[in-house]
């Protein structure tokens, strides 16, 4: 039967290991599979801002991913694909909208994965069912995977564009979120969390 110090060590070991895993996750999470929230209409999001309207306020900021700030495991084993993800698109406006999504200035292959509890047309990347004011799309999960060619992996700017959300009925741009994938200067964005 082990004595109390051994058991205490066991408890402390996994406790600290878990905290360490959280710290590590916050470190690589700033540049790997960055999660963000979206509101419509929010206009052009050129700096960190809080969008207020119907429903809860939404924090938004331009997305800047520094590939150099990814974890060493990622850089070593799977450097050629980087992803961003959202679980939140909220209509903070006063009228129902059918949201069309578009990535602007696509210079490298990008794969979309969309799941949601709202009718979605993958050909036009449009939610064909209106999102009501104050509502968020239920069970939303959208991942964008940037497939970075090896010859562009160390470019200063790998991708510079953004995500445009517009009203599918009128074509009006509701929200524009700039996205940059780059190497260097240490600027990063994102919460470092996931699924929150």
């Amino acid at each position, binding site marked *: 039967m082990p004595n109390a110090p051994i058991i205490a060590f066991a408890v402390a070991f*996994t406790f600290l290991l878990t905290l360490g895993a*959280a710290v590590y996750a916050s470190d690589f*999470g700033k540049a*790997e599979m960055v999660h963000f929230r979206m509101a419509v209409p929010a206009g052009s999001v050129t700096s960190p801002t809080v969008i207020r309207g119907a429903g809860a306020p939404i924090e938004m900021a331009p997305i800047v991913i520094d590939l150099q700030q990814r974890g060493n495991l990622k850089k070593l084993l*799977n450097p050629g694909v980087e992803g961003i993800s959202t679980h939140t698109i909220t209509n903070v406006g006063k009228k129902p909208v059918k949201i069309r999504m578009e990535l602007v200035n696509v210079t490298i292959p990008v794969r979309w994965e969309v799941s949601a*509890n709202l009718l979605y047309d993958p050909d036009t990347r449009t939610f064909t069912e209106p999102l009501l004011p104050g509502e968020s799309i239920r069970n939303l999960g959208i991942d964008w*995977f940037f497939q970075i060619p090896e010859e562009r992996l160390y470019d200063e700017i790998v991708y510079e564009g953004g995500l445009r959300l517009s009203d599918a009925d009128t074509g009006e741009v509701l929200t524009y979120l700039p996205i940059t994938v780059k190497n260097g200067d240490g600027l990063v964005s994102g919460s470092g969390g*996931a699924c*929150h």
Partner: protein
Amino acid sequence: MTAIETIRKNRWRYLSLVLGFFLFVGPFAIIARMINTATGNMASPTLHTLCYRMPVDWLFGGRWYALIGSVAAAFIIGVIILAFFMGPVFCGWLCPVGSVSEGVSRATPLPDRFRLRIRDPQVTKGLRYGFFAGFIAVSVIVGYKIASISSVCCRYCTSSVLQNMADGLTGQMSAVAYWHSGSLVTLFSWLVIGGIFMSGGRGWCLFFCPLGVLSNLSHTAGKKLGLYRMSYNADKCLDCTHCQVTCPTWAIAPDKSVDSHLCITCQECTNSCPQGSYEYGRS
């Protein structure tokens, strides 16, 4: 006991574990599919639909309101209630995450001397509850924005890794194209360290699964009230240690008693004991 004998004696459990894969993992995900159909949800059902971890994270991170109406929360509450009355049968008989790592461990012809097994349940429990305390601490720190760290809930998600692998096996190769550092750590911890290099292949379940901890706490409470659990009869025991060798969660103490904080009621001990020293029941 030979591998064939083990499979024959535990055939119902292994069949149940295979069934669990089809019940919970997409593209089959039969239970999630039924729930989605019933609720009018058009999302593709996956292992994530009934997430094992996020409701626990919400609870301790101050987002308890997110539990209301959550299918995942209802699912894990059901698992915990089931564990109270019947023992952690979900862990032992249905969980696809545990069954895959256990299967990988059993299928890998690695000599036992290369596999870790902690003989004293007190130490195993210490490691297990240390993780759980850490999980709660991280949920509180992240949920209440006390410090800038990340949740361990989703960044180290076996459900993601398993679902992506299943998608890859069913033809969606894009699902296994992206790996972030957390998923690489998870894959290595779950299948390599916790699977191949831990006796029984349940290392992840023992040390990194919050639902497993909650199920065993519930089971321990139920056991105190005389509900279903594994019991040991010392009078029949020949001290052969077959039970200790076969137990995938190292729940059998040196005195052969079953520790309810670790037992997943898989009944491998019952089926391996030549004397019938172990029984599952209420008595």
